[in-house]
Every structure is written in structure tokens, then in C-alpha cells.
């Protein structure tokens, strides 16, 4: 077994992702840099230890012969973007955060965004940790996903988003990305209109010991914003953080076909849902019942407005426990596959109503800091499934009509989605492969217990969208129906531009091999 400086190397006999959607497999080389006890005394500083470890690991991958390196985050992803081969790097200890000094920012940026604080965050840092540590400094992320379990590198690699309707996804708040593209080569990528002086790249080079080029290039930056883990090792990124704020809001519970909700889903003019509040909400999401009943609410709206940071207690969430044992969830999945018949919908619908009404109680939501609202998940590990389909706002109506046709048709055969239909909204991204390619996009997510029936429903939905000519993409980190032709259709020239950027960042076949993944091959981006 090879040895790398300051790194614990072990073989993991059985490994899978959080949801268990990837088949269990062995990982011959599971590398965790900077575990306590591997450092010893008289060791270099933390980032230098990380630099030494990662350089040696990359050297190994590039030379014997080029073997794939997968950095695993929190393993939230359902898709093959995570699928490891021989070697995995667990970046759990790569969690340094450091504010960029004002005098390392360009004058134009300081003038344009005086209240924002650019923050270097290592790729292994979890969103929960970022939230906690920013809170101590009176700062916050501008947006995050619905939960806080992701590590930063995985979060941006997959295009993770919230529902900040005028802001964008997490990768849209990046100012720079530090990519390791070879054993002794790294790049600090930033947009052509640079925000950071060359001092930042110099600091990274001094701290990590890895030569670092300062590159201001719009195309490379746009590619790396959503890099699918295949443009190099994301050692860290510079995020634009904002002074701490609170979020307060309200939940509405309406009938499934409520005209105001329906209209708002199509034009995102939310005012009709909050006639007493002039300001547009910061966050807007709608959760629908998959098998709506006439006698109970079927559309739940959550709206959040930003308020001052001191309006909410400055606290962090406590750990949560899974709602259910994983083995019991697996048993339910098996039984659900086995139980068929037309009665099933009538039996399942009230249960789903109970769950939705309990989770989305109508009324006011007291102010909380964002880390409290978008906190830990109680979703049990194993037996999970989810897909998320993205369409432009003008396609929301036909997309929903198709989805409910599919749900109804499958239900008639006793095949059911065991979860809600959740809709969130994100404006256009500047990244090449971010899913929000239209001025405003709707993300419809179908989380569920994983059964064969549910996987069939997902496929039927994707296929029906294609059949009806509705352009769509799927979330890179979730179960997806993307094929090379669907990628070309949705992303158009951006797919080719992303491949070209990859060739520039990783100019040799060996380099591309090291950072390849099963996902790239599936969707024709390799």
C-alpha cells in the first residue's frame, strides 16, 4: 500500500453513498489527509501538510498508470458523479477558512460590493461548518442548498441550489476557485473582471507549497463553477459572503389547483400570495401533493424574506437523528414494490396528506438565521431516491401537466411515488453547466423511498418530457435521465465549451483520465 505524507491510507471493503443508490464496492486506497496522528511533531503548517499530501496523491494517480481520483464529499449525491475507482480522497480535514484582506481585493470590487466579504474556504468544509464559523464573524452565505450536510467542493461541483429567486445557486456566489490540476500545478481561476489581486494566488502557493498560477479567464471560470468533479481537485474556493441576516416568513396551505398558486408558478409574481407585503420574498418554494385530494390542502407555499441579522438568535442547529431506521425503510421499500392494486392510491394519499400538513403548517415563521433554516437532514441513510428536473419558467405548466399524467397513469398500475413534488426557482447562471440556463428556471424535485416502481416513474417522466419536446436538464447530483443527446439539446454550445475548457485545464490524456468519472461517460462530456 502506498504511503503519502500526513495521510491515513486504508482499504475500505464495503463503501456506498448516503442514499445507497450506488452499488456497494471496495475502495483499495481510501486516503484521508491530515488525520490526527499522521502529522506528528515538528510538522509544517496545516495548508502545507494538505499541499504535501495532495501533491503526493496526485503524483501517484498520474503515474501508475493514470488512475482515477475521486474526491468524495458528504456522499449526498445519488448520481454516478461519486462513483469511485481505485483511489478516493476524503477531504474531511480540508476545512480551513480565511477572509481575504481588503488590500488583496481590486479597487473596483471594493467600490462595487463594499458590504461583502470574500472568504477562502477549503473544499472539504461542510456547509454546516461554514455557517457556524461565519456566524461567529457576523457573516453568512448568500445562499445554500436545502440542507447543510454538503462539503463545499461537492456542493459547487453538482450545481447545488436553494430557492433564492433573485440570487442564484451556490456556484453563482463564487469569486474564485483553486484547482489542483497536476501534482505540482494549481490554478486560481477567477472571472476576466478580476476581484482578487495576485497576492491571493501567492498566499496559496506559499501556504500549500504548490506552484499556483493566477488566471483571470471568463471561460475557464464559467466551466469550473460547475466542474462535475472533473476539472481538477477543488482545493478551495473564494466565496462572497454577506453580513449576517435573518429569514422570516410564512407558509400557506392551499388546495392543489389553487389559481393563485398555479399562476405564480408560471410567472413568479408572488405578490398575489402576499398582498399585504410589498417586498418580493428572498426564497419561494411550493410543495405539491403527488396524489391530491379534494378535501385536503394539496399545495404548500413557503416564502421567506430577509431581515436584519439581529432580529434572530445567533445559534446553530443541534444534530438531528434519522426519522426511521434504515433497515425498516428498506423493508418498506420492498413491500411497496410487492403491493399492487388500484386501492393503493386511496390508501397512500391520506398518509401523504398527513405528512405534508404536519411538515408545512400554515402560519408565520419566526426569524431565524439561515443556518438554522437550511440545517441538518433527518433523512435516514440508505434506500433513498431523488431526481430533480429543471425547465425554463415558461415550461412549468406543460411540465407539471405531464408529471401528473405520469403519476396518475403509473398509479393506476399500483406504482407510486413515496414522497412529495417540490418546486424551487433559480435565476440564470453564468456557469456553463449550471442547470439554470434560462432567465428563470423551475427545479421540480421528486424525493422518495427508493423502490423499483419509483425508478420507473422517474424514467417515464424524463421520457415524456423528451417526447413532448420540453427542454429539460436533471440535477447533476441526483438520479438523472441525461444522455449525450439530451445534454447537447439542453446545454447547446455550452457542452462543447465546457469540454474545450477541460482540455485547456487538463491538456494530457493522463490528466483527463485522473479526473474522469462515470457520470462524464454517461452524458457524453468525456
Amino acid at each position, binding site marked *: 500500500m502506498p504511503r503519502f505524507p500526513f495521510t*491515513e491510507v*486504508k482499504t*475500505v*471493503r464495503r*463503501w*456506498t*453513498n448516503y442514499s*445507497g443508490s450506488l452499488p*456497494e464496492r471496495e475502495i483499495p486506497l*481510501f486516503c*484521508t489527509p491530515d*488525520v490526527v496522528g499522521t502529522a506528528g511533531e515538528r*510538522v*509544517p*503548517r*496545516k495548508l502545507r501538510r494538505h499541499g504535501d499530501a495532495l501533491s503526493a496523491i496526485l503524483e501517484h494517480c498520474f503515474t501508475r498508470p493514470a488512475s482515477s481520483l475521486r474526491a468524495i464529499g*458528504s*456522499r449526498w449525491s445519488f448520481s454516478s458523479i461519486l462513483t469511485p475507482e481505485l483511489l478516493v480522497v476524503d477531504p*474531511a480535514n480540508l476545512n*480551513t477558512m480565511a477572509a481575504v484582506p481588503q488590500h488583496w481585493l481590486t479597487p473596483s470590487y471594493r467600490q462595487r460590493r463594499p458590504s461583502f466579504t470574500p472568504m477562502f474556504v477549503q473544499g472539504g468544509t*461542510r456547509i*454546516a461548518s461554514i455557517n457556524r464559523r461565519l456566524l461567529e464573524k457576523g457573516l453568512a452565505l448568500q445562499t445554500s*442548498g*436545502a*440542507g447543510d450536510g454538503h462539503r463545499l467542493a461537492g456542493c459547487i461541483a453538482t450545481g447545488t441550489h436553494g430557492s433564492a429567486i433573485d440570487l442564484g445557486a451556490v456556484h453563482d456566489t463564487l469569486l474564485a476557485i483553486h484547482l489542483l490540476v497536476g501534482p505540482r500545478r494549481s490554478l486560481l481561476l477567477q472571472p476576466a473582471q478580476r476581484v482578487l489581486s495576485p497576492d491571493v494566488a501567492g498566499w496559496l502557493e506559499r*501556504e500549500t507549497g504548490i506552484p499556483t498560477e493566477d488566471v483571470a479567464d471568463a471561460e475557464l471560470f464559467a466551466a469550473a463553477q460547475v466542474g462535475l468533479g472533473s476539472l481538477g481537485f477543488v482545493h478551495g474556493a473564494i466565496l462572497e459572503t454577506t453580513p449576517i441576516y435573518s429569514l422570516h416568513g410564512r407558509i400557506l396551505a392551499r388546495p392543489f389547483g389553487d389559481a393563485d398558486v398555479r399562476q405564480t408558478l408560471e410567472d413568479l409574481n408572488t405578490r398575489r400570495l402576499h398582498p399585504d407585503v410589498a417586498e418580493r420574498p428572498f426564497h419561494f418554494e411550493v410543495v405539491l401533493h403527488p396524489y391530491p385530494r379534494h378535501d385536503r390542502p394539496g399545495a404548500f407555499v413557503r416564502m421567506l424574506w430577509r431581515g436584519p441579522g439581529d432580529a434572530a438568535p445567533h445559534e*446553530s442547529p*443541534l*444534530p438531528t*437523528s434519522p426519522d426511521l*431506521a*434504515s*433497515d425498516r*425503510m*428498506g*423493508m*418498506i421499500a420492498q*413491500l411497496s414494490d410487492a*403491493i399492487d*392494486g388500484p*386501492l*393503493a392510491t386511496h*390508501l*397512500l394519499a*391520506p*398518509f401523504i396528506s398527513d405528512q405534508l400538513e404536519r411538515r408545512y403548517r400554515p402560519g408565520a415563521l419566526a426569524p431565524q438565521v439561515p443556518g438554522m433554516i437550511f440545517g441538518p*437532514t*433527518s*433523512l*435516514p*441513510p*440508505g434506500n*433513498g*431516491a*431523488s431526481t430533480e428536473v429543471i425547465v425554463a419558467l415558461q415550461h412549468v405548466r406543460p411540465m407539471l401537466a405531464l408529471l401528473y399524467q405520469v403519476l396518475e397513469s403509473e398509479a393506476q398500475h399500483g406504482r407510486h411515488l*413515496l*414522497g*412529495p413534488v417540490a418546486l424551487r426557482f433559480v435565476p440564470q447562471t453564468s456557469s456553463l453547466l449550471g442547470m439554470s440556463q434560462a432567465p428563470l428556471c423551475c427545479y421540480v*424535485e421528486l424525493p*422518495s423511498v427508493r423502490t423499483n416502481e419509483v425508478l420507473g416513474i422517474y424514467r417515464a417522466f424524463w421520457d415524456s418530457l423528451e417526447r413532448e419536446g420540453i427542454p429539460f436538464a436533471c440535477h447533476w447530483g441526483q438520479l438523472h435521465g441525461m444522455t449525450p443527446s439530451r445534454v447537447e439539446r439542453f446545454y447547446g454550445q455550452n457542452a462543447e465549451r465546457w469540454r474545450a475548457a477541460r482540455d485547456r485545464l487538463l491538456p494530457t490524456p493522463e490528466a483527463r483520465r485522473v479526473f474522469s468519472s462515470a457520470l462524464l461517460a454517461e452524458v457524453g462530456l468525456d
Partner: protein
Amino acid sequence: MTPAFCLSSRVSSRAGRAARGQRCTLLALVAAGSLACSHHLRLTSPDTDPGARYVCSGSGECRPRGSDVPADDNPSGTTSITLPRECAGKIHQILIIDAGSSEPEVRVTCGPPEEPVGTMGEPEARLAPGER
């Protein structure tokens, strides 16, 4: 990600004449799952993130864990306990009284914080060895 539903109460939702047989099967299986399981304790420290994983035995030996399947760590019969936030993740000792019962008591002794040895006149917080 929006959470899926956890179907803990789904057993009763399957009631009805046509589904009665299936419901009984489900009840029996769930009950069997409940009865067959032993007690496990999950102790979680607030304000910390998951890092490297180990498995320790009664002999006092700890070794890197050679298996990493998240669902394995969430078996039936698990009681979850949140450790004191006041320890700031630094624990000296945990004693579990009646670990095999359904109402265990967890006695926690925090470890005091220890900063690395500094030098008079130099700033304290740098990315120095020992800092974690």
C-alpha cells in the same frame, strides 16, 4: 434536497379490507424488526463535522474502519443522544449506564480546551501545528 417522507406511520395507512392481509404481513415484519433488534446508542457532538472513521473494541484497540456504508450506522433499535454543546466536541470520558436498556444514561466528562504552546508577543491564532 427536499426530504422524502419517512413512512413510520405507513403501517396504519395501509388499512382496509383489500389490503388487510398485506397490512398484517407488514405489521409482522416491522414488529419482528423491532423485537429482534438489540439496543444501540448514537452519540453525536454538536457543532462538529464527520471526519475519519474508526472502530474500537473492548480491548482498548481502535483501528481505521474498513467499511463505510451509511445505512449500517442506522439500525433498528438505535437511541440517539446529543452530547453537551458545552464540551465543544472535546470529550474526556463517556460512561453509559445500562447501555443495553431502552433508557440508558450517558454521563459525559468534557475535556478542557488546550491551545498550542505559543510565544510571548506573537499572535495566538495562526495556522500552526496542533491547531485543529
